[in-house]
């Protein structure tokens, strides 16, 4: 009995030792991998983000319920700034203009960007240099290129009208007419940001498996059918991401509009961002400008939440 007991106990003891060793090891590992142990890594960035990103958000909310002109005393006015937004036609027009600009400035870069991505997905001579030239507008300093565009739009001496007339098209008014200023600014925005759409979609195309194409080729599909029925559905998540990013960027477009038309002629190209700048740093009406920021922020926040959920879903898949 003893012997069997000993014999029986030995393995039991061993397994107990193994079992107790295993939790001990995981406990050590878990102890080291505890989220708390990583807080010191995040803390400095957390302080900076709180000071320069979260604090401005909160302070903007605070300012938006005050009458806050620089140089005069600050008084609490409750929702008055927001009520003013409801009756301010200039603000409402700026929203409509922003939506008009954004719709066009999403549509054209998306279409051209997807086409460009299909081109650049193929292997051809000079692809590297062509792609470099193609993405340069996106990397170049916006103010610098906006100034060059301004010179190109000049009604008498501009090179664009010269090029148009030389192929028999009458000169265009570009940014000098209330009806053409937004389409012209959309053209500049398209020129600048189509490369980003191209890069995101190209990233999607590059990660596609080759088998479906080979199967389709065997079945006699042509290039267009391959694109429409295989590539497009497979890169759809990338296209969505590109579209959301483009929407956010178009909503907050500032540099090129500010430099090229500065909201004009009149207020014909005054988008929300331009009006915001004007209220804050020309009229110094910080309270009212803050109310505009809050509305603007809510619009952008909703769109970015869509972006984030799309990204998360993609990461899960």
């Amino acid at each position, binding site marked *: 009995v003893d012997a069997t007991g000993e014999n029986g106990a030995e393995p039991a003891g061993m397994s107990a030792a193994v079992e107790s060793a295993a939790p001990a090891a995981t406990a050590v590992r878990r102890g080291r991998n505890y989220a708390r142990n990583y807080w010191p890594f995040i803390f400095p960035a957390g302080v900076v983000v709180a000071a320069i990103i979260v604090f401005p958000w909160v302070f903007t909310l605070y300012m938006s319920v005050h009458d806050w002109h620089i140089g005069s005393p600050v008084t609490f006015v409750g929702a008055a700034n927001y009520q003013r937004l409801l009756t301010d036609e200039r603000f409402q027009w700026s929203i409509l203009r922003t939506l008009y600009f954004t719709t066009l400035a999403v549509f054209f870069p998306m279409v051209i960007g997807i086409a460009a991505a299909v081109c650049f997905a193929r292997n051809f001579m000079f692809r590297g240099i062509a792609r470099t030239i193609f*993405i340069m*507008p996106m990397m170049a300093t916006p103010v610098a290129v906006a100034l060059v565009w301004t010179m190109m739009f000049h009604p*008498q001496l501009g090179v664009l009208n010269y090029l148009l007339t030389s192929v028999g098209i009458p000169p265009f008014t570009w940014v000098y007419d209330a009806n053409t200023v937004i389409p012209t600014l959309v053209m500049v925005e398209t020129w600048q940001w189509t490369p980003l759409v191209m890069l995101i979609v190209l*990233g999607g195309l590059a990660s596609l498996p080759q088998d479906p194409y080979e199967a389709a080729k065997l079945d006699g599909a042509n290039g267009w059918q391959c694109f429409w029925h295989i590539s497009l559905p497979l890169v759809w998540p990338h296209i969505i991401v590109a579209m959301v990013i483009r929407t956010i960027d178009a909503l907050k477009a500032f540099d090129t509009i500010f430099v090229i038309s500065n909201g004009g002629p009149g207020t014909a190209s005054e988008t929300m961002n331009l009006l915001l700048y004007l209220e804050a740093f020309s009229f110094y009406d910080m309270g009212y400008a803050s109310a505009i920021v809050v509305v603007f922020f809510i619009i952008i926040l909703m769109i970015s939440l869509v972006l984030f959920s799309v990204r998360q879903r993609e990461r899960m898949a």
Partner: protein
Amino acid sequence: MNALAMRRIAGRIGFYFCVFLLISPALLVFLWMLSLSLKNEVDNMAFPPVFIPNPPTLANFIDVFEKNDFLSYSINSVIVSFSATGLALLIGVPAGFGIAKTKATRAAALVMIARVTPGLSYLIPLFLMFQFLELSGTLWPLVITHLVITVPIVVWVMIGFFEGLPGELEEAALVDGATIWQAFRHVALPLARPGITVSTILAFIFSWNNFIFGVVLSGRETRTLPVAVYNVLTFEQVSWGPLAAAALLVTAPVLVLTLFAQKQIVAGLTAGGVKGG
């Protein structure tokens, strides 16, 4: 068979024509910028326009440096962009590591929101804050606000890179008795060097290109290059040659970086997905 070969050649020519169409707008603007900057004032005002400078002149570039404080604006830009990028790396790389390891989705979402919020919305409170702190007239307000751009870029790119690294090496180091800091410093950090390169380049470019913060926060002495080229050159002299030359000088560092680091920029923008500012 011959018809097929013909069709193939026609298709190839058509394809190259499409590629040419795609890059021609970019070529047009940059070559026109170059052309304007190398021509004298008479040729720049000529109609029909003179396309090829004959003879090319560097007078416009000399003009930019002689008639303006271009050198001190360049120094401002260099100080602001380098400090903002350096500080962002110092705090952003560890933060990216921490967020990736703890899978702090909410912190990542905060960074994401910070990146998509319009720059102007930070400016009003920060503008008042800098007035209150009496920092106006120094470069500090610019360096601090540029962190609004650079920190989210660095953190966002680094989260992606640290998530992509295999965790086994660090875990092995931890089991061997290394502290988390040592595992980060000697294992994760060397592996993430490509990610650090990407985030440095992107943070630097978007800080360098930034206009909106500078136009509000900088005084006469503290202008960065994009603000200087807008303010000084558009209002104090309207001639096209020096203006184009200055524009070219402002954007040249970024274009050169794009040429040499195209691979990293493409990788960063494709993975990170969002531009800054």
